[in-house]
Every structure is written in C-alpha cells, then in structure tokens.
C-alpha cells in the first residue's frame, strides 16, 4: 500500500505547489482592501520595462498594491490582454498604438496622433496624457553608409544602387511602415532579414558588418549616439509621432491617473535616452533605474 500513498501524497504536493506558485492574476481583485491592486504590464523591451517600473513604484508609494506583469511580448501579444481587462496599465507609444487600432490612419504629427488615439482606443480603455518623451521607430544607417551615398532622408535611399536589406524584428516585416511602406511611400525596394533583438546589439552589429544596410532602431536607444549611426529623416511620414503614453483600463482611478500623468510630464526624450543608457551601460535592473530616477525627480 505504501507506493499508493506515496503517489497520492505526490499528487497533493503537486497541486499545492501549482496553486502556490501562480504568477498570474486573471482578474482584478477589488476586495476588502482599501486600495485595489493594479496590474502593471510592459512590452518585451527593456526601455518599456523601465517606464512601467516608474508607474508601478509611484503607485506603490501612494499606497496601491501593484502586481507586475513585465516583458509580456510585443504589442500584438499584450494589447489583447489589456483589452480583456487582465492588465490595468501599460506604457505605450502613440503612433504605433494608433496604427494598431486604426491601420489606415493619416495622422502624423504628435497632437493629431494623440487626438486620434483617444478616439481609437477600445471602449473599456483610455489613454492618459502623452509624455514629451519620444521613442520613435526609425530607419538607421551607419555613418559610413550615409556619407558614401549622401543620405539624409529615407527618400535618398532611392539613390543607392546596391541591393538593400532591412534588418528588424519579425513583426516589422508586415507592419505598415516596413518594406511595404518603404515601397509605397518612397519607392525603395528592400529585402527583409529578421533580427529578434528589438534594435539591440545584434542589429547594430549587423549594420556595422554590412549584413544589413538599413535597420529599424528606436530613437531612444543609446546605441545610436554611441555607434555614430545616422537616423534618416522621414518627410513622407512613414512613421507616426511616437510619444510615450500610458494606456489604462477603467479600473485606474483619478488619483492614480494624476500620479501617472505627473511622471509622464517630467519624462523627456533626453531623460528616456539617459534611462536606457543606464540599463545598457551600467547593466542595472529596471527597478533600480526607475527608483533612482523617481527619487531624483522627487516623484516618490
């Protein structure tokens, strides 16, 4: 009989371990706490994680319990979760978010994009105030390449006679500002090669090794200045303005919203680049960087 008891005990232990180690809370529990728990999420992007941490820590400092669901994935993965109410707050970027909900949008400049975004957001969500901080998708080339072909704008790429390959995340291949957009708006043909590091070190290396000539790197990435890369200008508006903006569910109350808006107003593009630089150069965890910044800005 012993082995049976052993097996039963194992099964029981399994159930206990499973339930005890649950890491996801599907629904918001507005229980007997005086303050409800907010679920703060982030993209699978270290910069986004830092911003999410600033939101989370500010809320915690104000007495709200916060559950973190960081590094969920790309927009296509986490937006459905916030739409379904599983996440309450996530830092987003105005342009790409608008294009996700309204692919055909013609808005390009920051205010127009923000206004349209407020309309385009689904029923049970809203966007809080946008931040002056921008983190733009951008087409980037090496200084050497730009000098060789005399490139300042994306349109100049048409002058290049050698075959062009674009490097970027998988989802960039089918997004409106990918190879399709390059062809439609600028008449430039590019091949696409996937590099799954979000414009990170592999992408930079690929550019420098000339494995790709063109890459999608975000403007808040410290590697642009560090490696003397050139951001090509975008006169035709392939890329929409991309300001940091918090997307919030209905559960975020006014007090919380005010706190978050304060953070947004203090963060500028330069601040964001500096935060990112701390992550990449000093290799600090997002929580530490967020805490230091919030303290320095007297936000907590």
């Amino acid at each position, binding site marked *: 009989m012993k*082995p049976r008891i052993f097996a039963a005990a194992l099964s029981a232990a399994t159930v206990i371990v499973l339930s005890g*180690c649950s890491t*996801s809370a599907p629904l918001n529990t507005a229980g007997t706490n005086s303050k409800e728990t907010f679920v703060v999420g982030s993209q699978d992007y270290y910069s986004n994680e830092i911003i999410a941490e600033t939101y989370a820590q500010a809320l915690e400092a104000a007495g709200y319990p916060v559950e973190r669901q960081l*590094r969920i994935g790309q927009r296509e993965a986490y937006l459905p979760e916030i739409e379904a109410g599983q996440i309450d707050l996530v830092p987003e970027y105005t342009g790409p978010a608008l294009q996700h909900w309204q692919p055909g949008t013609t808005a390009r400049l920051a205010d127009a994009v923000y206004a349209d975004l407020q309309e385009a957001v689904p029923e049970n969500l809203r966007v809080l105030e946008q931040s002056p901080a921008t983190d733009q998708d951008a087409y980037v080339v090496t200084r050497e390449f730009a000098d060789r072909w005399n490139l300042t704008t994306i349109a100049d790429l048409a002058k290049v006679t050698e075959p062009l390959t674009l490097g970027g995340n998988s989802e960039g291949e089918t997004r409106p500002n990918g190879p399709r957009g390059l062809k439609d708006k600028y008449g430039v043909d590019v091949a696409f090669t996937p590099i799954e590091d979000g414009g990170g070190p*592999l992408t930079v290396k690929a550019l420098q090794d000339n494995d790709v000539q063109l890459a999608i790197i975000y403007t808040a990435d410290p590697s642009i200045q560090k490696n003397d890369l050139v951001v090509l200008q975008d006169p035709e508006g392939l890329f929409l303005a991309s300001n940091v903006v918090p997307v919030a569910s209905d559960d975020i109350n006014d007090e919380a919203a005010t706190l978050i808006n304060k953070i947004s107003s203090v963060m500028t593009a330069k601040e964001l680049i500096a935060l990112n630089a701390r992550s990449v150069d*000093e290799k*600090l965890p997002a929580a530490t960087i967020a805490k230091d910044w919030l303290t320095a800005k007297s936000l907590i």
Partner: protein
Amino acid sequence: MIWLVTGWPQALQLALTHLALSLPAIILSVLIALPLGVLANRRPQFGGALLSSAGLLYAIPALPLLIIVPALLGIPLRSPVTMVVVLTVYGFALLVRSVADAFGAVDQTVRRAAVAIGHSPRAVFWQVELPLAVPVILSGVRVVVVSTIGLVTIGALVGISSLGTLFTDGFQRGIVEEVLTGMVLTVVLAMLLDTVVVIAGRILTPWTRASRPGREKADRHLTASAEVHR
C-alpha cells in the same frame, strides 16, 4: 561582473520560478507515464500505438504547443498551468517508452518464479516487477529532468517568466554575463535535480549496492526468492 552585482536577486527569483514550473511537470510526467507504460508493456498492440503516438507528440515544436494548449484549455497563455501542461506532454512522451522498456526488460523467469511462490498478481507487480524496473525507469526520469529544465527557457519567447528571461533580456541589452548566468543556473538546476533522482534511485534499489561489504546480508534476503528459482 557588473550585471551580476545588481542582477543576482532577479536571477535567483527567476531560478525559483523556473523550478516551480519544472517540478510539477516532472512529477506529473512520471505519474502519467508509469501506468500507461505498464499498460503498453502488457498489451503489445495498444503499446505499439501508444509508443508511436508518444514519438509523434515529442515531434511537436514547443512554441506552437504553448499557443495551442491555452486555446484548447481556455486558460491564459502566460498562466503557469500552460507551461506545466506542455512540459508534461513532452515528459510523458519521453518517459513512456522508458517505462515500457523497463518492464519489458524484467526477466520473465523472475516473474514466473514469483507467481510460483504464490504471490498475487498485485504483489508480483509491486514487490517484484516494479522494483526491478526502477533502474531503467530512473534513467528515463533523468532524461526527462534535463529535457524539462531546458525546455522551460523557451517560455521566455512568449512572455512566461523563467531563467529564459535572462536570455531575452541579455540579448536585447547585449549583456553577455546575463545570458551566461542564465545558462549556468539552468545547467546547475538540471544537475542538482539529476543528483536527487540518482540518490532516490539508490534509496529505492538497495540491492544494486551489492558489491559493498556489509550489505550482503540484506541483499541476500531481498533477492533470495528470485535467486532460488532461477
């Protein structure tokens, strides 16, 4: 070493999460594979079909399975249950063949001897066949342990926290030590659990320590019924 100085709490936390996902899966794999493997051994026709299906299961790539399972079961993608179910599927597919082989390798004369002595079929199974099958089953469990711990890292690609998160984050920020730490911790975890399984094996099969002096008396007692009628 800069990253490690501030990053080690996070690494440790992820290691614990990693373990919390692996252990239930390994245990469940064993609990499911044991009876089914025995059945496969007893009924060869059913067994053949089962083992082929198990081979097929193992060929399913992990990423799609991580998406299909939550859709089928109606649970959130990033719930720990998803990962545990997927890991159990692979663990079961790996182990069921070992279990079937283990029981197949039990010497039929030993079995018949036990029946001849007068053991009931249940006793024959629990007191003769299972103990003799344990060594081969355990070597299968060791494979499952290593495979499961390695597989958990893939979850990072769909937002499931584990040591694999150290890979994706290190990748994005270009921090080699972070990735290395993730790899080392994964290997260490696997080796630790492997050792636990080996020790469990020694405890469960005391007769395999026959060559040690001072053990002879106990061993003779345990294997006597089998030895006499060989």
